[in-house]
């Protein structure tokens, strides 16, 4: 295990940010800490990085107890949501910072920084100041800066949170490809379930200072441990008192075994999908269908249908 956090508890005044959290991250994996804001995931990341001290619990990085080790001696890479670019230093000097602190020879620094700038596609921006870069470029610079010192683990705190949707999507898949090339053990914090599902090898769902579930993206999506995880990871609707995914609702136009009768109340087209809102007794489930499915069923507001949840 690259990172072992055990029994981590952290309070801020009366607020319990983390309550006895255990976390294991295997070597070379890309793990997402996923959960709503204020759930404790950023605090956990900062404790692993040494920027916050836990009130109780231990942190081991590559088998070494780092609980009391100051952040500057942990050799971790940390990327902040708001880039934390060194504004007075050029892109080159930003990336070189950790190596200069470690007093590496000049030509080694030059070689390593050029490699990294190439890796993050910023080689032609080496002499710019961070203020002259876009948000996405700044965050790539921050990533190169963190990777320059060959960290034992890479920690990213909402790395794409301050970027607009388009850039966020690009950087997401770029991070995934980068990780496949470098294999540095990576933990990233996000409140965006789509981001976690798309990028991570493993997802740790954190809420109210506790770990709700740990598993592969498919695991946590298809087999959520509880209603919170189910609700947080994707759209849900209710049928016969149970939570189901709207795309797991089968719609029939004739009575079918185990299906319950319902009436279509509204049809809404969103791009390629059709949201069919229905009334079934005192419940109002909705189903996510493709346009083709909705047309084949001949759905209209007022249509009588039968609903069944896919197992």
């Amino acid at each position, binding site marked *: 295990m690259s990172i072992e956090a055990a029994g981590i508890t952290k309070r801020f005044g009366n607020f319990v940010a983390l309550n006895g959290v255990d976390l294991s991250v295997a070597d070379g994996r890309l793990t997402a800490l996923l959960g709503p804001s204020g759930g404790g995931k950023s605090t956990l990341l900062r404790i692993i*990085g*040494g*920027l916050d001290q836990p009130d109780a619990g231990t942190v081991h990085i590559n088998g070494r107890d780092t609980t009391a080790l*100051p*952040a*500057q*001696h*942990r*050799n*971790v*890479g*940390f990327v*902040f949501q*708001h*880039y*934390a*670019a*060194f*504004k*007075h*230093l050029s892109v080159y000097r930003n990336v070189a*910072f*950790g190596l200069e*602190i*470690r007093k590496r020879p000049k030509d080694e620094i030059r070689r390593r920084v050029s490699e990294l700038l190439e890796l993050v596609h910023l080689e032609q921006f080496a002499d710019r100041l961070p203020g002259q870069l876009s948000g996405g470029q700044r965050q790539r610079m*921050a990533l190169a*800066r*963190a990777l320059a*010192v060959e960290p034992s683990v890479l920690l990213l705190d909402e790395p794409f949170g301050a970027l607009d949707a388009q850039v966020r999507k690009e950087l997401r898949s770029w991070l995934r490809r980068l990780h496949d090339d470098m294999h540095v053990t990576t933990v990233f914090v996000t409140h965006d379930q789509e981001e976690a599902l798309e990028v991570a090898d493993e997802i740790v769902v954190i809420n109210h200072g506790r770990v709700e579930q740990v598993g592969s993206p498919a695991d946590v999506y298809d087999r959520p441990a509880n209603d919170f995880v189910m609700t947080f990871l994707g759209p849900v609707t209710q049928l016969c008192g149970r939570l189901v995914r709207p795309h797991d609702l089968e719609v029939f136009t004739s009575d079918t075994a185990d299906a319950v009768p319902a009436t279509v109340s509204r049809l809404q087209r969103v791009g390629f999908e059709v949201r069919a809102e229905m009334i079934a007794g005192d419940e109002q489930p909705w189903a996510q269908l493709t346009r083709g499915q909705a047309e084949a069923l001949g759905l209209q507001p007022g249509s009588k249908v039968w609903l069944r949840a896919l197992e």
Partner: protein
Amino acid sequence: MASGRNATVLRSIAVVYVALLVFVPLVVVTSETLGAGWSVFWSAVSNEQAVTAFRLTIETAAAAVAVNAVFGTGVALLLTRSRFPGRRLLSALVDLPISVSPIVAGLALILVYGPVDGWLGPYLHGAGIDIIFALPGMVLATAFVSLPLLLREVVPVLAEEGVDQEQAARVLGANGWQRFVRITVPTIRPALLYGIVLTLARSIGEFGAIRVVSGNVSGAGQTQTVPLLAVERLERFQPGAYQLAFILMITSMLTILVVFFRRESLAGA
């Protein structure tokens, strides 16, 4: 247009106000100085008392600037980077020199360091250290009255920049001193420079607090700085008061102008 006329009226009021308050006195002092002629000017600034006053003013101002640059930066860091009981009180206290009369500041220093019946003064005097009626007291008084000028420039910058950059440097392996030198100082450098210049301009012109703690001694063991000497000459109807005032004025204007143009060129870059 009504709003256009209003704007013109407002602009005229502002111009007249600034002219009466700032420009007219400047012109008067300048014309008094230049009208008296070069030989009067030269004798006003070159006699022994004036030369000593210049030396004392420069020494006092330089020392006060040095003290405030170091301790002011320290206090600014303390106020923005740590949480401790009494932080808000300290934050309010450092603005005190602006609201308190410099005379009061000077009297307080005499109460503490006065050589005869101050709290610490007699012991220090016994050990051969004189604070009051000597340069150290003048430096303390000047540093006290000018401290808020530096803090008011540096604290907002530190507060706005936050700790992100320092934390990033820390994770990259930088120790406390390296973070201070490589990150904090470059971040506050423009604000610190401006604060230093304001402190310098204020220190050169300081009158009230210095008047109290220096004792305004002339002759042997002179503690009289340029502003004190200018007032003495004015009160005794001696020549040379306007000439000293002119030099004080030009020095302050030059320091402010240098920083102003530096700021402009930085903003343009």
